[in-house]
């Protein structure tokens, strides 16, 4: 408990001869305690639980709690109405209420159009407490209530939604200066332009207003943003600056004239404002690096396709050409090979033919040498024919190699018997191979 108990009874006087180290003497401990259950209810229990769970002592806990509350109060107070009052403003005449900055009068110039109704009410109360003429009179100063009237007027304007909008429309204090091109190029585009759009956004009939974003915003977001601002629907109006319409009935024409003038002025101002906003957005768009980035990206995208197409075509062409060449080369090679082969084959054939001819000649010669296989004397003509026919038959029946073998066997042989035996052997082999029937060759 933080409360301090006051005890009126006096403490006893220190007896003579009492002494202890550091003036403190512990005598004995407490009596044993009883264990009981505390009811887990109430703020003080919660404090107890907090202390116990976090193992804090009383003073620690108090300090931590005090810090937390201080923080909370600070947070709450951050938006509190505690602006220094401009002495010039205090001198203002309430009659000139159109020229006064109502937010500044109430000390809300930090908040302006963002000030909530509650804030305005509280600010009004605070200012009234300070500037009420009765208070001033009590303090001995003159009964000058002009600033009090200013406060009342400001509250009247700001608490009426229609009048507040009219004032907000022409509230210079809430405007943010548009950064120049140079500034933008030197500084951070987003940092410089964000407040501008934020302040312009207050006039929007449509909410939420898309935000400017940063360099990482997506293309859609950025385009949406500019789309929104190019089609901005503003409630801004300029009645507040109207010239006072004379309310006397004597000069109606004058009255109408003023009214008409006001109307035209409003229209003009509105058009100017629209143009101004348009130019502002144009400027921003022109300075926005992202737009350039997206354009470049788009361009690259487009070109990429084109280049790709071209490259593709070229490649295809080259490939076709290559294939053609390859084919031609292959055909040529094949032709050549064929030709060579043909030539070779011809030669070999001729050689074989020649060899066969020679061999045949050898065979026939051998048959002649063997006197056509006739014993004794000159062979009769029919026998010669038969023998030659048989030799031809043999030649016909055996192939070139056998023929060559046979001719080599026969070559140089003159002995009739030997030649005959070779022929007989040959015939036997042929018959064994079943190429000619037995008995077909009779000469040997």
């Amino acid at each position, binding site marked *: 408990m933080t409360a301090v108990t006051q005890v009126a009874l006096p403490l006893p006087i220190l007896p003579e001869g009492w002494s202890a180290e550091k003036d403190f003497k512990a005598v004995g401990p407490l009596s044993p305690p009883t264990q009981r259950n505390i009811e887990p209810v*109430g703020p003080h229990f919660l404090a107890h639980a907090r202390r116990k769970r976090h193992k804090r002592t009383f003073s620690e806990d108090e300090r931590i709690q005090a810090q937390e509350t201080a923080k909370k109060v600070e947070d709450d107070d951050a938006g509190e109405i505690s602006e220094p009052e401009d002495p010039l403003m205090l001198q203002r005449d309430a009659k000139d209420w159109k020229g006064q900055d109502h937010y500044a009068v109430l000390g809300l110039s930090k908040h302006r159009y963002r000030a909530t109704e509650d804030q305005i009410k509280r600010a009004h109360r605070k200012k009234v407490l300070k500037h009420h003429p009765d208070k001033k009179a009590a303090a001995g100063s003159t009964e000058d209530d002009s600033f009090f009237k200013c406060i009342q007027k400001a509250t009247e304007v700001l608490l009426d939604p229609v009048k507040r909008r009219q004032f907000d429309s022409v509230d210079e204090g809430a405007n943010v200066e548009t950064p120049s091109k140079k500034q933008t190029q030197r500084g951070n585009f987003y940092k410089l332009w964000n407040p501008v759009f934020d302040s312009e956004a207050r006039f929007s009939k449509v909410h939420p207003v898309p935000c400017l974003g940063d360099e990482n915003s997506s293309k859609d977001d950025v385009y949406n943003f500019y789309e929104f601002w190019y089609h901005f629907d503003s409630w801004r109006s300029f009645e507040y600056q109207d010239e006072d319409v004379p309310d006397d009935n004597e000069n109606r024409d004058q009255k109408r004239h003023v009214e008409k003038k006001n109307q035209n002025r409003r229209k003009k101002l509105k058009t100017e404002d629209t143009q101004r906003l348009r130019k502002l957005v144009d400027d921003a768009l022109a300075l926005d690096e992202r737009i350039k980035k997206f354009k470049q990206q788009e361009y690259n995208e487009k070109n990429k396709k084109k280049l790709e197409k071209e490259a593709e075509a070229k490649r295809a062409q080259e490939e076709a050409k290559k294939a053609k060449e390859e084919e031609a080369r292959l055909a040529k090679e094949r032709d050549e090979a064929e030709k060579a082969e043909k030539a070779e084959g011809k030669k070999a054939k001729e050689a074989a033919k020649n060899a066969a001819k020679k061999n045949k000649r050898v065979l026939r010669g051998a048959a002649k040498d063997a006197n056509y296989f006739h014993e004794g004397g000159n062979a009769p003509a029919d026998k010669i024919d038969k023998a030659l026919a048989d030799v031809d038959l043999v030649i016909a029946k055996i192939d070139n190699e056998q023929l060559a073998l046979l001719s080599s066997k026969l070559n140089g042989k003159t002995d009739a018997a030997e030649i005959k035996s070779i022929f007989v052997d040959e015939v036997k082999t042929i018959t064994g191979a079943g190429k000619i029937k037995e008995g077909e060759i009779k000469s040997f």
Partner: protein
Amino acid sequence: MSAEESAPARTAIGIGFGNSYSSIAYTTGDGKAEVIANEEGDRQIPSILSYIEGEEFQGTQAKAQLIRNPKNTVAYFRDFLGKDFKSIDPSPCHASAHPVEHSSGIAFSIRDTEAESENTVTVSEITTRHLKRLKTSASDFLGKEVNAAVITVPTDYSVAQKEGLKASAKGAGIEVLQFIHEPVSAVLAYDARPDAKLSDKIILVADLGGTRSDVAVVASRGGMYSILATAHDYDLGGAKLDKVLIDHFAKEFIKKHKTDPRKNERSLAKLKLESEATRKALSLGATASFSVESLADGIDFTATINRTRFELLANKVFGSFIRLIEGAVQKAELDVLDIDEIILTGGTSHTPKIASNLQTHFPQSTAILAPATSVTAINPSELSARGAAIQASLIAEYDTEDIEQSTHPMVTVTPHISKAIGVLCISDDEQKGIFKKLVEAETAVPARRTAHFAVPREGGDVIVKICEGVREIKVSKPEPKPKTNGKPEGEDDVDDDEDDEDEDDEDEEDEIREKVWKAGKVLAETAVKGVKKGGKVEVQVNVGGDLAVQLIVREVGGKGGVRGNIGKPTTVENGSA
């Protein structure tokens, strides 16, 4: 409510869930608890459900059904929750749907649909339906969905009953943030008043309900509450007082018409209902009328009764209330003089005679917080719901886990100091000196108290003797001379200005009983030297969780001072884990 800011947006209310009546409360933005009226404009909603051809009625409408449709009207079901059939006393339900045994506890056999057949509805289902209605009323009033609540329960509610109630609440879409005891809730409701000052006091909470009464002796120490003793009477309550009226009017009726309306069930129900209304009227006015149409045999009955008559008739019942309360004081091993405050809660507490009886039984120093004795008293019927709503607003922002941890026995069970700790004033002799207590007995540790003590007129060196004190009841014959060592007990309460002498000579008693403090064991001595003339000495006692005591003694405004430690007692089982 601040609950909105928490991540799972909680809208928490306090529910005082009674056997006879329930009430719901919420806290306004500035922390004041307000009781919500339901659609019918009732702040006390009878805990009764009634069914007619499938249509559900609750509250006052259901209560009216006790006459014509008692079989399908469920009343007095709270105490059955989470219990088995053998352990309940079904007598309060005599005139409504009777409880029957069911596999999962207790059920009622009622026709709650359009069908002719009877359905068995468990008590937990009934509770869910009742809570659902309460929730709807609160949601309609607040304009947003209520999804959490702190519910009050009697001190003898078992864990099983709490679990049962929790499950029923969950069925109704209410997250039970915490169960708090009814008497403590009442204390909290009083302590949360903006003008309430924290002080160390012993509070007796008498919860006088419709069918039962509970008494709890609560030690309030620096805003922390420890229940010292409880007493229950499951028969004593408003119904007993109604019975007195029933009998009285029945006799009147018999005298006139020769029939006993108590013989007929319907007549009895009518008698009962009207008696309750008459009793309530008598709590407010000096006379009340009693009128029932067609009480018995088609005869209308009208009568009037005045408060004195009623109090005479019900004297016996009032006596048992007092006995119950005094029994609780004895159970707590205290004297009536120790009780600093009596809080009367529960509907029956409106009865003025109970409060005035207590006034005569307790010393004048005891503040009795009841509508009859204190103008600032809060409506006793609303106390428990209000306390629950305050607790709900305190913990609504907490995570469920946080609440569980904070209410865990590890945190709640703590050693309490068994004897008061104080400083000896005037003389350093323990016999002659006056014991001025700093830390009361039954204070949960860790605790810290600070006091400023005056010094002798001429200043100089003083001794601060810290000792334990023992409270004694001194009985003395009344003497005309004022007390020499005048130590009226009221002085301890800094916020009470009743510290003038207690002895009132018109007291019929022959002897005067008073509370005196005797210094006991000395704990420590310190010296403060060179205190200025008219200066003050600040003594701060810090009792640690392990009962080690740290003392800081210094002159107010002076530098330095003496710090000293007294070791912890060796026999202590360390409760502060």
